[in-house]
């Protein structure tokens, strides 16, 4: 099977419909501040349980990369990021709008997103099958070390304290171990609740941590929207704009793709790195922050490319690098599809169908975001207090319909409150989610490795590949504690704040 077979799957009427629904919902949640793509994916996940896995993944991924497009519209027109990865677009995008160039800013952001996204899909299509072949040599110890390394990289990339991020990962590992023990069938930490014997549901936890908590925070802080009221004209960039944006878009695409591969880096970091690279190499860095088109084109290409890149570790190694990918991993497991090195050989329809649908989705998105930009501006004007009941009720229905049980709803509400407190206390939820989804796989590989080595922990350090991964993990744990690294980080932070 190859990409052409993928197109024959993605181009069926049903899959085109799911793809269109996904990218439309993605753009919608991207445009609306207060609900992100991960919350939207978790709300819609129950709806996908009755459809074929390939269609479900096409729709869920469409929401994820669609949100990257929509988020920039809000950043440019309102100066509030529609979702986290568009934060950096506010800086120059909104300044362009204030100077009467809102149309060009929206145009170049959609075109940059399209090119960045497409470059990453080409990368995914080429790299994933090769990486999957390499991953076939992985045994239990290598997998365990890879997951340890992934979690450490994720916490290393955390925006706040690395220790706190590691603590969140450990809480996630514990939450993931709730339920029936896989080897002996012993119920663990279920507190007598029958529904917990299959574990605490990942989707209600994600809905709580990313959906409910966001609503609570926005209500507390009151989102005030000052929507751009001028006329949006001349969306297509001029020749001069093209010349200024071509380099940033291609560099942004590459940066985004590589950042997508790293656990924890994802689209947010990719956008920031692309922005600083463009500012550093620009002949007129003083224009950045005042409406430089490069400051919109680069980061937008990067955040879209990061999504394509993030699919590689997910589909070939079962390692999610962002919370959205963790949700997709959970979704794959619910559909009974084992992701990892064997996915491309065992379920080629899913792999190639999803890759092909991403090409189609990107074309749909550019159509949705350029000619229909007026529609999104109208949606942006909906007051937030009308959205609150809708978001909360969708979350309740979504979590209830997972297993027709109020336990999932209560779990979602409790984690909504916990997520709200985490945000106030500067604890990140992403490591918790990723550790929670990896926990059963990690535990299984850990126990199998110890059985294999008859209790010798050195098995993780004596096999070359596993040793390299463990070495990287240990190095990353030590690095932030070295004083010269700490000083350099502090200086860099100071410079970025200036």
């Amino acid at each position: 099977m190859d990409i052409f077979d993928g197109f024959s799957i993605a181009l069926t009427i049903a899959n085109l419909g799911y793809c269109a629904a996904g990218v439309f919902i993605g753009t919608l949640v991207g445009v609306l501040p207060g609900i992100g793509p991960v919350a939207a994916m978790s709300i819609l996940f129950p709806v996908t349980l009755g459809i074929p896995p390939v269609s479900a993944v096409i729709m869920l991924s469409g929401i994820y990369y669609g949100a990257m497009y929509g988020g920039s519209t809000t950043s440019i027109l309102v100066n509030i990021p529609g979702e986290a990865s568009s934060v950096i677009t506010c800086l120059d995008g909104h300044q362009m709008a204030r100077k009467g160039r809102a149309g060009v800013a929206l145009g170049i952001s959609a075109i940059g997103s399209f090119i960045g996204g497409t470059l990453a899909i080409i990368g995914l299509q080429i790299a994933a099958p090769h990486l999957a072949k390499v991953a076939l040599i992985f045994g239990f110890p290598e997998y365990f070390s890879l997951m340890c390394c992934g979690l450490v990289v994720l916490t290393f990339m955390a925006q706040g304290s690395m220790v706190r991020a590691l603590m969140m990962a450990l809480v996630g590992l514990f939450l993931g171990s709730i339920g029936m023990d896989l080897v002996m069938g012993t119920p663990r930490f279920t507190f007598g609740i029958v529904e917990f014997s299959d574990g605490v549901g990942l989707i209600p936890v994600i809905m709580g941590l990313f959906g409910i908590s966001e609503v609570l925070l926005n209500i507390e802080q009151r989102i005030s929207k000052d929507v751009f009221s001028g006329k949006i004209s001349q969306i297509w960039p001029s020749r001069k704009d093209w010349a200024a944006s071509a380099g940033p878009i291609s560099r942004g695409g590459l940066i985004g793709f590589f950042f997508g591969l790293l656990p924890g880096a994802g689209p947010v970091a990719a956008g920031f790195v692309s922005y600083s690279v463009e500012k550093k190499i620009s002949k007129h860095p003083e224009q950045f922050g005042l409406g430089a088109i490069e400051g919109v084109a680069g980061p937008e290409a990067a955040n879209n490319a990061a999504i394509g890149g993030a699919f590689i570790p997910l589909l070939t190694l079962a390692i999610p690098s962002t919370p959205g990918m963790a949700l997709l991993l959970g979704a794959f497991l619910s559909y009974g599809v084992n992701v990892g090195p064997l996915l491309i050989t065992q379920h080629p329809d899913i792999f190639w169908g999803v890759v092909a649908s991403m090409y189609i989705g990107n074309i749909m998105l550019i159509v949705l975001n350029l000619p229909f930009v007026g529609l999104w501006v109208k949606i942006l004007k909906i007051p937030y207090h009308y959205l609150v009941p809708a978001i909360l009720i969708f979350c309740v229905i979504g979590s209830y319909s997972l297993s027709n049980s109020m336990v999932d709803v209560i779990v979602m509400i409790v984690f909504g409150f916990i997520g709200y407190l985490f945000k106030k206390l500067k604890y990140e939820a992403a490591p918790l989610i990723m550790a929670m989804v990896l926990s059963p796989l990690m535990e299984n590989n850990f126990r199998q490795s110890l059985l294999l080595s008859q209790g010798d922990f050195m098995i993780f350090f004596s096999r070359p590949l596993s040793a390299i991964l463990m070495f990287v993990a240990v190095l990353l744990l030590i690095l932030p504690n070295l004083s010269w690294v700490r000083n350099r980080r502090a200086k860099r932070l100071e410079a970025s704040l200036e």
Partner: protein
Amino acid sequence: MSIALRKENWLSGFWIVCGLAICIASYRLSLGSLNDPGPGMFPFIAGSVLCVLSMVEWWNTTRAYQRAAHSLAQTVDGGADGARAVSAEAVEPLFANRLGAFKAAAIIVALLIYALAMEHLGFILSTTLFIAFLLWLVERQRWYVIVFGAVLSSMATYLVFKVWLETALPIGLLGF
């Protein structure tokens, strides 16, 4: 001790207790042996590392606050007391907007009541009451907006999810 440091110490203490609780519960499940790990071993390791990291976090924050207080003491008139007063003043309270925090808390309580009432009152009635409460609480609306908004949106949600998407929703004692 500044308010912020006290808050951080309480937090670290909370995580240490969580870690210990996980360790004890895991130990009770049976740790097994290294060559045949039991169901408690993996969570036991997670709980132990959580305890250690909570202590590291406690140590890091205490040192960071001491350093900040020391540098303030050198720059602010009034020495250590002045620095303490300044650092306490500079700390942003956890819930700066009291009304907003109250609304957030009210929503959590309302969500819990909504979830518990849904199986008795049914989806339509409980959702109507919940939406009406939200429209009243978040940004006070006129009474007719609340009534019509709540009734129409709960009916619309029912039609979309129950009738069109055939999602399972609680029926309740009234049969809808």
